[in-house]
């Protein structure tokens, strides 16, 4: 049943899509039916695969660097009062900036290649990672800190061996958000200026009325984002299995 349900949902949506095309009789360059998209995906698999590789690499690199930077900032903020005074305003300001508006600048500065897209993804996930993790680091249960104090724990040990593991569940929710939005960053970067990637392929196909190819790229992008999210979710659940999920509300 665990596998059957999502398959059933996906099948239902595809059927609905097909019916919509049949019922309205829209031309394929407006809305191609799912079978046509599947045939295109099959026929152009090499092309789609090559562009998928680019986008996947951008997402993974963005996720990696964004997590390292975000988690690092949060640790720094938690460790030092002076860092809080200086870095916290920057963190908040970074969120006030419309990150998408920066995309043209990033392409200008970092070029048409992969770097500007990675930077875009990093910028998008930096804030959710840093803010959730910092929040977790600030909310260490008082009793544990008191125990550590009576034990004469060293300050660094308190941060790394107590506050950090205690904040991992909070970091995990930040990482889940990051996994969900990182593909957006990469694709927006590609739209602004690039020569490969699924976002590029979509624009390219759109301009040539190859709507079926556009849908094929979109489909693969969804698949990519979904599998990324589930992979991250499972890895996180495994990493913090000491905090089992409480029963789902029925």
């Amino acid at each position: 049943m665990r596998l059957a349900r999502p398959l059933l949902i996906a099948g239902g949506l595809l059927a609905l899509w097909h019916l919509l095309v049949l019922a309205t009789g829209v031309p394929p360059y407006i809305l191609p039916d799912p079978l046509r998209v599947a045939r295109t995906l099959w026929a152009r698999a090499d092309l789609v695969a090559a562009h998928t590789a680019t986008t996947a690499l951008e997402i993974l690199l963005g996720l990696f660097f964004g997590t390292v930077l975000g988690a690092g900032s949060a640790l720094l903020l938690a460790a030092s009062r002076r860092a809080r005074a200086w870095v916290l305003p920057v963190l908040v300001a970074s969120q006030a900036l419309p990150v998408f508006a920066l995309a043209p600048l990033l392409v200008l500065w970092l070029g048409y290649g992969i770097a500007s897209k990675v930077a875009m993804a990093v910028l998008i996930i930096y804030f959710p990672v840093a803010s959730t993790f910092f929040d977790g680091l600030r909310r260490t249960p008082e009793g544990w800190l008191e125990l550590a104090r009576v034990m004469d724990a060293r300050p660094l040990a308190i941060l790394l061996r107590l506050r950090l593991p205690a904040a991992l569940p909070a970091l995990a929710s930040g990482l889940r958000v990051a996994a969900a939005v990182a593909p957006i960053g990469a694709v927006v970067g590609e739209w602004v200026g690039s020569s490969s990637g699924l976002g590029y392929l979509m624009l390219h196909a759109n301009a040539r009325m190859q709507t079926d190819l556009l849908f094929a790229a979109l489909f693969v992008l969804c698949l990519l984002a979904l599998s990324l999210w589930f992979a991250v979710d499972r890895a996180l659940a495994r990493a913090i299995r000491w905090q089992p999920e409480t029963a789902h509300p029925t």
Partner: protein
Amino acid sequence: MPRAELLRPGGGTPAPGIRLEVERLLFDGAELFRDLVLEIPGGRWTCLLGPSGVGKSTLLRLLAGLLPGAARVASDGLPLSGRIAWMAQSDLLFPWLSVLDNLVVGYRLRGAPRALLAEKRAQARSLLEKIGLGGYAEALPAALSGGMRQRAALARTLLEDRPVVLMDEPFSALDAITRHRLQDLAAELLAGRTVVLVTHSPLEALRLGHEVRILEGRPVRLDPPLQIGGRPPREAADPALLALEARLLARLAGGDALAEAA
């Protein structure tokens, strides 16, 4: 039982007494303590007895140095930090560490050298055997029942191997048999140390304490110390002890002073 292999007798250094003075401490706007002086004798068990909410835990936290507003002086004039082990009412086990790692977490947090850590892990294993958790060394705390978690927290406190040990109802979640056994074990392992035990059970106080102090009222009044003769852990079935328990209960229920009862 071989106590020397597990912990150093008396905690290595002679266990100091503590004098605690609180001028005034407010709790929720009401005066909890006023001009309170508590003398804890060195190398002996002092049991703090009193109704729930009277301020026993707060007093213990003041002794642990966790709250401001009190002066603590050790009888030997040396600083107290680094010489205290504290067991809170809740077990405060770290859920991400195995039971064994929880027992030695103090040494980890202090950055103990590898050799000491290995030695403490070995001691922790044998201590776990003694308290009936031998099969749970690698388990996470979530897999333990409330009573088992409390036993693990007690073991962690013992393993800290400090001359001063402050315990807040350390046996409250245990079944009668286990409680009896662990009281014996704690009395044996902590002999010669300065122990302050918070409890609401008169019998527990009488089994384990050299001295029992009753707290009551607001601001808190301290009865003069009630000295109990003989060596703890005392036999729970001792008629003299049971008679004393009956009088302590009557005292807690609002009876007359008991200072000269012993």
